[in-house]
């Protein structure tokens, strides 16, 4: 099916071109002056000012822990199975002293491959992996460093609160909604690998 393109028949004034240019100039000047004097720009001055992330924002993955500090993960491989990017590598092991006998000896996510679909979180039967950290600055100087391992992803969890929340509160005074903000914690904000 062909649809003829609607062509606007130009009037004489439009064909003169100059009045249209003036109109355009008026619009751009209006923006420029408004922004110059009002300084009310939608831009967020990112590293200094941070937008509060929505609660359901899928940030960096973390591994949740049980009260005794061990990871909840039991290396069932559901996440690795469901992952469309095949970025999760788990090596299972046996813990002889734990009634939950299976645990991940190593748990790696290749963040370069990850597409942040969140299927791993959905698939997890143990609520062991979450993407609720709100951390979106996932970067490193080497490919190896982009592979998050078990220790790193477990450390992202502090108590039962993602570090990201404290991070944002300190940075912008605006913790993501839904996190309680009573406890004050001081974190190094030196751009280190920690965050």
């Amino acid at each position, binding site marked *: 099916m062909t649809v003829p393109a609607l062509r606007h028949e130009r009037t004489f004034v439009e064909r003169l071109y100059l009045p249209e240019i003036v109109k355009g100039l008026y619009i751009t000047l209006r923006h420029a002056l408004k922004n110059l004097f009002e300084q009310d720009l939608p831009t967020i001055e990112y590293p200094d000012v941070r937008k509060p992330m929505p609660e359901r924002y899928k940030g960096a993955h973390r591994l949740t822990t049980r009260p005794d500090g061990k990871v909840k993960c039991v290396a069932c491989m559901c996440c690795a199975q469901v992952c469309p990017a095949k970025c999760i590598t788990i090596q299972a092991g046996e813990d002889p002293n734990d009634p939950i006998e*299976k645990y991940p000896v190593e748990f790696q996510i290749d963040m370069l491959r990850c597409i942040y679909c969140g299927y791993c979180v959905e698939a997890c039967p143990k609520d062991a992996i979450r993407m609720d950290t709100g951390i979106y600055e996932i970067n490193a100087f080497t490919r190896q460093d982009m592979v998050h391992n078990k220790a790193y992803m477990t450390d992202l969890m502090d108590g039962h609160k993602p570090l990201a929340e404290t991070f944002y509160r300190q940075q912008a005074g605006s913790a993501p909604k839904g996190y309680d903000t009573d406890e004050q914690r001081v974190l190094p904000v030196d751009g280190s690998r920690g965050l």
Partner: protein
Amino acid sequence: MPIVKINGVEIEVPAGTNMIDAAAKAGFDIPHYCYHPHLSIAGNCRMCTCEIEAGGRGLEIACNMQARDGLAIRTDSPQVKAVRRNVMEFLLKNHPLDCPICDQSGECRLQDYYMEHGQYESRLADPKVGKHKRMDIGDHLVLDAERCIACSRCVRFGDEVTGTGELRLFNRTDHTEIGIFPGERISHAYQGNLADICPVGAITSKDFRFEKRVWYLDETDSVCTGCATGCNIRVCHQQGQVFRYMPRRNDAVNKSWMCDHGRLGWQDIASLRRVLRARIDGKQAELSEGIRAAAAALRGVDASSVAFVLGTRATNEANWALWKVARANLPQAGVYWCQGNDPGAWSQVDDLLMDADKNPNRAGARALADHDAAIGDGTDLAHAVREGKVRMLVVLHDDVLGRLEDAAEGVAVLHLGSQRNTTADKARIVLPATHPTEQDGTFTNRAGRVQRIRRALPAAGDALPDWQLVELLGAALGKGPGARDAATAFKLLAGEVKAFAGMTYKDLGGGGLPLRQPEPLPSPPPAQPAAP
């Protein structure tokens, strides 16, 4: 033969056939836990309940129903489905929900049937009955009594197959618990089968424990090379790595069982004793150089002083190819087959599956020797060597020097094999061959059954399949047997050797075929009594 009707499909089966098998033949899958084709009927899981339409009435369990004329059953009526749902609910009442850590998940009947027939809403109000978990009950087994559904398959296996009877159901009602007598251990050589037949994750294998989720595994049908029995197996592997061997049902050979020795045979594949590169005079070399050097060495000696030794661990195709190469290029050379036994570390023998002969293809090599009377046996070879007639030995997968010992001093050896042994270590030229899991071919078991092995893994190092290595050697000498692949080699072999006449890979299929002139080997040494 009686004709039975299953879901309206008429099928003729031998009298007395179990209705689960009959239904399977008709294309209907009747879910079951306690029924096993090679164990007695217990009829305690009630999962295979079917509705009888004619030749009886009401609901009956299919496993305890024998085919008889006029019998008509239905496996998918609403009543049957309701029974299955209720049975599942009871079975799962005390079953723990630890599928994430259970090795069985992925091949668990409970999971499968639950998805198919389960009642998805739990009506359970009381706490589940706790039982013993994670018990070390044997060298290769872990028992989790909570996961048991009391099908008693393992109990029957202990009673009927090994006769040891360690496993029992203790206590009553919902406290019924599988276990062994405190202080005892399961120590027989067929433990792995207990893990296999357990329809749930109650008995799992220590060797496979937590290694891999089963759904990642690819499966290739093959044959165990641990002894001359030739148990049919499935090689479970992923990305070039084998994780386990599983027995494959072949009623003519191993039923559904295999011994633990064979089951752990995969551990050799990656062991340090593999030959991965060609070696010439102790120095590593390219494979092509090795083959050229081998051909040059063979041409450089008097043909009548060369002895070719067919291997009892090599495939039929390779043995045939070596015989052809010898005959075509060095007609004066002697060809021998060795009856030598190379038991290795595991010399256990019983009258169930484990044979005294640890070579998988002795019968195949012998079939060739029967075809060509000029092929001498091990005794002839020993004589020839001792008399100094042999200056050069071409050995295929065999430890000739290990048996001849000092007699072979000064004989140049050309060894084609996958594992290092005395011969390989002393050989002038070593050419790397693949492990049986890395090549196609056939083995002939002790009963003269020709069975296929299939390539499951990529070849390690420079190794080539046995037949191909021989083929290349022949080509370097001037005339190879002319096989493009293992299937062609077998076809040529079948066209030439009467014992294999007319066989093709397609005919062999999954279960293999007996040799055309069945000549059972002399029975193995008197069997030791089964392990207590």
